[in-house]
């Protein structure tokens, strides 16, 4: 409650006068009565009087006091100021934590600068007696503190300092959820629609609406960015293309391209260097124009003349610049996947069929970007050798990723890879299944039907497959999954366990249309992808992407800048999220003992490299309609109280009378 005219309290002098009148007032008037005997008797009855009687006795003076008080209050003009819940002093601070906020000048990043300025604003707001909300716009928008009051000043500042703790730096490398921050700000605006939203950012907004945007960028900032690197194979040679930008100013400098595992030739001037799985570093002088994309091309058909580079194979490409600019995270780029991993297949048959040989060759060509497939064919029949389908050799029981046995099956099967059995004469007892006698049908034979839904059968229409000669699998253990049925009996089984990866097809390819219909390559491709999946599906991921890792070993480890420690996984597939740019290494050791190392890189969004980025419109939060609170005049309430008491007195006195 406030007073417009505090001097009006002088009106309370009237109270002193009133009390004086009561003091001077004659107290008792003598009354002659015949006897006071009954009055004395009545005293014990008066003990039962109700509290209102006391009130009634003092009601008159209460009314008089109220009248004097009301007059004094009317002079003083009391009022209750409307609640300041719509104070414009309240601030909603939004701190942009996107990758571009890592741009630094003089050792201080934009993010640190934003935190310092936000702390100053917090102090200023608290000094005005208002409240502050702080929202961190990172990958997702979160409240650091909602509607904090001045008594939380120290706590809030500690929380702000924690955001720039070197051991737990909260600025991200990716895009900031500014829209989400504005949504959070709306929850505060519901309580105070006059609160001011202050955004600390380095991004320039042409139209920022009602949001107060405070730019924390520094005029001295500059950034050279390697946005992308590609290795494009053309005419069996690779051409390396590097996309570069310069922001803040033009740039003239050197781009270093380091090629690991290069195979081919590299000639500078008259000398030509033969590359045989070697590492070379090619410095490229580049001139970048501020804000424009520059594409640097190396290799065959390259427009950039740094020598005659002809490489047909590589392991990885590492591009980097040594310039000390404002944003270091985009000064290097890793490109992996130049050399596909080797996949060894052994095909053994006593009646070598051309369909399988052709299929393996097709797969070798089809999957050459993912796998370097090495095929070893072993014939075991005179006719096959005579027809030239293979060459004599010994069956190897380890060291291969895929073992294909047709007709005659060894007693002991390999355990370090996928075993495919084609129309086996007999099966080893270790497989725990039994086969029927061969069934030789006339005419078009029988049409197969699909078994359980299975990744191997994806896009394979079983009703297109028919055979006139086959065996059925009469018993098998629960680890197998039936893929195809002939007249209700399984003719294809799959088993994928850590120590037993088996695919059994019990129909004769020579008596089936399977090898000549499109379902066959699909089936085989699915088989490889199912049993021997690639570790990951891309060599370059964007920040925050989900990476699905497949393993061919019991233990897989992942190391990279997003993880403080190496991650270990025993079961796959596993999903990981990468929220830091750089190179990631996935290591696995299959049963064969040959350690498999795969690498992929994570890059930041291209717009975060643009430290001078300008955006048209900033999405504003919804501002609720403000209903103004008016100051409450209290005189009317005193008047109501007075009238009420007067009414009470009138009522009580009327009862007395």
């Amino acid at each position, binding site marked *: 409650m406030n007073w417009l005219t505090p001097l009006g309290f002088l009106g309370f002098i009237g109270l002193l006068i009133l009390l004086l009148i009561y003091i001077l007032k004659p*107290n*008792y*008037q*003598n*009354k*002659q*009565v*015949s*006897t*006071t*005997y*009954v*009055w*004395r*008797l*009545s*005293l*014990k*009855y*008066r003990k039962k*009087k*109700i509290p209102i*009687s006391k009130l*009634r*006795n003092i009601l008159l003076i209460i009314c008089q006091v109220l009248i004097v008080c009301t007059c004094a209050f009317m002079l003083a003009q009391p009022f209750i100021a409307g609640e300041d819940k719509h104070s414009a002093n309240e601030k909603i601070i939004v701190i942009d934590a996107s990758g571009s906020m890592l741009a630094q000048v003089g050792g201080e990043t934009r993010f640190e600068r934003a935190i310092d300025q936000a702390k100053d604003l917090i102090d200023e707001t608290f000094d005005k007696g208002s409240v502050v909300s702080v929202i961190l716009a990172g990958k997702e928008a979160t409240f650091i503190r909602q509607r904090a009051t001045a008594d939380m000043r120290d706590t809030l500042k500690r929380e702000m300092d924690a955001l720039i703790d070197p051991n737990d730096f909260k600025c991200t490398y990716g895009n900031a959820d500014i829209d989400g921050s504005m949504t959070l700000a709306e929850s505060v605006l519901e309580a105070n629609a006059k609160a001011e939203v202050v955004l600390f950012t380095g991004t320039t907004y042409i139209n920022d609406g009602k949001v107060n945007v405070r730019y924390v960028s520094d005029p001295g900032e500059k950034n050279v960015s390697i946005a992308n690197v590609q290795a494009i194979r053309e005419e069996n040679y690779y051409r390396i293309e590097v996309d570069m930008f310069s922001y803040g100013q033009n740039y003239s400098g050197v781009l270093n391209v380091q090629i690991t595992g290069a195979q081919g030739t590299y000639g500078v001037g008259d000398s030509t260097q033969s590359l045989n799985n070697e590492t070379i570093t090619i410095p490229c002088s580049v001139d970048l124009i501020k804000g424009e994309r520059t594409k640097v091309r190396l290799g065959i058909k390259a427009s950039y003349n740094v020598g005659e580079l002809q490489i047909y194979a590589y392991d990885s490409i590492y591009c980097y610049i040594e310039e000390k600019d404002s944003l270091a995270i985009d000064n290097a780029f890793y490109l992996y996947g130049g050399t596909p991993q080797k996949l060894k297949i052994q095909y053994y048959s006593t009646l070598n069929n051309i369909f399988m040989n052709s299929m393996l060759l097709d797969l070798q060509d089809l999957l050459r970007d993912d796998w370097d497939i090495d095929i070893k064919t072993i014939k075991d029949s005179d006719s096959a050798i005579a027809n030239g389908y293979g060459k004599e050799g010994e069956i190897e029981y380890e060291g291969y990723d895929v073992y294909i046995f047709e007709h005659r099956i060894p007693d002991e099967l390999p355990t370090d890879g996928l075993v495919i059995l084609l129309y086996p004469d007999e099966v080893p007892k270790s497989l725990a299944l039994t086969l029927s006698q061969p069934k030789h049908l006339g005419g078009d034979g029988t049409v197969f039907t699909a078994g359980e839904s299975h990744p191997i059968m994806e896009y394979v229409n079983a009703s297109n497959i028919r055979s006139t000669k086959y065996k059925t699998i009469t018993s098998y253990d629960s680890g197998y999954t039936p893929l195809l049925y002939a007249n209700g009996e399984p003719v294809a089984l799959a088993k994928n366990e850590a120590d037993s990866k088996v695919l059994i097809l019990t129909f004769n390819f020579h008596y089936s249309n399977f090898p000549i219909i499109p379902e066959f390559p699909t089936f085989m491709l699915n088989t490889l992808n199912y049993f021997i999946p690639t570790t990951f599906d891309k060599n370059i991921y964007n920040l925050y992407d989900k990476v699905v890792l497949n393993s061919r070993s019991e233990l897989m480890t992942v190391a990279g800048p997003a993880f403080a420690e190496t991650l270990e996984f025993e079961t796959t597939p596993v999903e990981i999220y990468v929220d830091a740019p750089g190179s990631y290494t996935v290591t696995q050791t299959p049963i064969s003992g040959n350690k498999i190392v795969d690498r992929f890189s994570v890059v930041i969004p291209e717009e975060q490299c643009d430290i001078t980025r300008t955006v048209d419109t900033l999405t504003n939060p919804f501002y609720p309609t403000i209903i103004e609170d008016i100051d409450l005049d209290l005189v009317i309430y005193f008047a109501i109280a007075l009238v009420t008491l007067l009414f009470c007195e009138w009522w*009580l006195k009327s*009862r*007395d009378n």
Partner: protein
Amino acid sequence: MKGSYLNDEFFSRLETLSLEMRADLAGFFGGKHLVKTYGQTVEFADYREYALGDDIRRIDWNLYSRFEKFFLKLFTDERQMHTQIFIDCSASMGKDNPQKAAFTVGIAAALGYLSVHNMDKVSYKLIKGNKAEDPFGTIVGKRAFFSAMTGLENLTFDGESDIDAAVVGCENTGNNDGLTLIISDFFTDSDWRRAVDYLSYKKRQVLLIQVMTPEERDPTYSGRVNLIDSESEDLTDTKNMKMNIDMSAQMAYEEALKDLEKDLYEFCVSRGATFITIPTDQPIEKVLFKELLKVGIVE
């Protein structure tokens, strides 16, 4: 006495009334009150069989002719009663209220007149302090009565009164011989119950008459007042009271008065006595011809 009722016209209106007393009283010979005992009047009461020694003149021969047995005719007896009227002469009965005093004297005179008019004896006992003064002695006959009225008319009310001590200490209260009236406002700490018990023990017919002014029944004053008791000696007397008389006080007064009257009535009923309250704002004739008739004291 200002406003005195005692004049010829007042007494002449009483000629038609008489006091009605209980029949079991003994009384004295020579009165007009019928009693239960058999006597020599002409009013037939009962028959009884003749016994040796009875006066043979009273044998009903007609019955003898019918039953061939001797029966005597019995007649009621008439006795003279002694009416004693105790008048509370404390200040509360009229020191500051002449009307209450006149009313009290008027009632006492009227009932005394009814007694002498019916050939009864009457005596006035003036309660002053703890004594009952008998300034007029036993009054028989109208001449003596009117002679006493002169003194009664000049009766003064002052001081306190102790009904209990005065009645119990009275030398000649009689025994089973008439009516005793106590005229008072009964606004006293005195144990009037003991007085009634004593009179009942004496087999007297008892009538308590409470005289009350309208102001005593319903006080009209309110606010902060210093109530000065008429029986108080000075302003510092503890009988005086400082009170803030409001509605609750008035309600308490009304309740206390009602309880006092109820106590008087119930006690009198329990002792076979009669109690009436007489407001002074009523005409005295109404009291005599209505209130006393209603309780059966006069007929």
